[in-house]
């Protein structure tokens, strides 16, 4: 593990915060690149992007109530705490849900009925791939469960090897980024479908990787994060179910 990446004039730069910031910058850069390619006008990208960002900030923190219970309330309710680096931004699952909702509301405020948000899909995957490197280097949550696999890694504080779970996440997201870029012009993956695929794919992977992470099991052998993934997947299934019913109705 490498908790401190480097120093600038004696000031230590910590790996988690560095890669979190780099992940966000990567995300913004990919959104700009993809928005230009899609000829998405700046007067739509800017408000939708900002609303998604602020929605992500709120969602990341509010979701901590779901994951940690009422103990997390001060970090959720006190507005000033959102800017306090010692608390941290919160959960990526909550950030994704909040960003989706924020972007959707801004899109509606601009009078758009369809979804132009597919530019966010590859950005989400690549940003996550970069950010997870910081989780690994900082040994966040003890990295993963005990493992005897050849690629298991040592972590400070324990005398056994563990799954490098953040690196699994990172590797999946690099692969997922390549898949999303390859599929981004598919006619059936327009109008918000690419972003829904990106979110659904990550939720499915995250559900699986949770089995080797150190989050607490809350009920029936599953963690709160796994229940959040199931909620996200159920929401997507309900959306596509309703849409299919509407299409079938129109055909009749």
């Amino acid at each position, binding site marked *: 593990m490498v*908790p401190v990446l480097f120093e600038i004039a004696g*000031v*230590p*730069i*910590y790996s*988690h*915060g*560095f890669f*979190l*910031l780099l992940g*966000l910058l990567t995300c913004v850069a990919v959104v700009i690149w993809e928005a230009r390619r899609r000829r998405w006008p700046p*007067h739509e990208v*800017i*408000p939708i992007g*900002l*609303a998604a*960002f*602020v929605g992500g*900030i709120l969602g990341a923190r509010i979701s*901590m109530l779901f994951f*940690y219970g009422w*103990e*997390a309330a*001060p*970090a959720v*309710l*006190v*507005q*000033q705490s*959102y*800017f*306090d*680096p*010692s*608390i*941290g*931004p*919160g*959960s*990526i699952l909550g950030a994704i849900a909040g960003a989706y909702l924020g972007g959707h509301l*801004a899109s509606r*405020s601009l009078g758009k009925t369809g979804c132009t948000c597919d530019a966010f899909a590859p950005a989400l995957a690549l940003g996550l791939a970069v950010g997870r490197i910081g*989780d690994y280097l*900082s*040994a*966040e*949550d*003890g990295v993963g469960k005990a493992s005897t696999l050849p690629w298991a890694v040592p972590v*400070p*504080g324990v005398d056994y090897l563990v799954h490098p779970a953040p690196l699994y996440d990172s590797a999946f997201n690099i692969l997922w980024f390549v898949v999303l870029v390859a599929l981004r012009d598919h006619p059936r993956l327009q109008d918000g479908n690419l972003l829904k695929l990106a979110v659904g794919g990550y939720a499915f992977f995250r559900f699986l990787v949770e089995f080797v992470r*150190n989050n*607490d099991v809350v009920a029936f052998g599953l963690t709160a994060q796994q229940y959040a993934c199931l909620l996200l997947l159920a929401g997507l299934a309900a959306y596509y179910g309703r849409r299919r019913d509407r299409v079938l109705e129109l055909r009749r």
Partner: protein
Amino acid sequence: MVVAFVFGFVIAIVIDFILSLGAFSFQGTSSAPGAGQIVMSWLVTGAAFWILYKMHRWAAYGMLGGFASLFVLLALVGGALGPYTCFSTYGYPPLR
């Protein structure tokens, strides 16, 4: 459009500054806000956003930009300068 955006941006910074003053003390330790302060801070922020949105949509977007900038500067850049993770300090989260 640009003027409205900048106006909203400045309003976000001013609101954050006023809220920070509420939690400031000369003893160097910020006092934990009470329930009334917490409710008021969200009401003021929400009302300001609503008024800006009604005045000019881009003023509200500017306010979002202000909060996004504060978050990047204070929480993310600040986060790189300390041993902080997603919701804890380094290692196992203290909340558990």
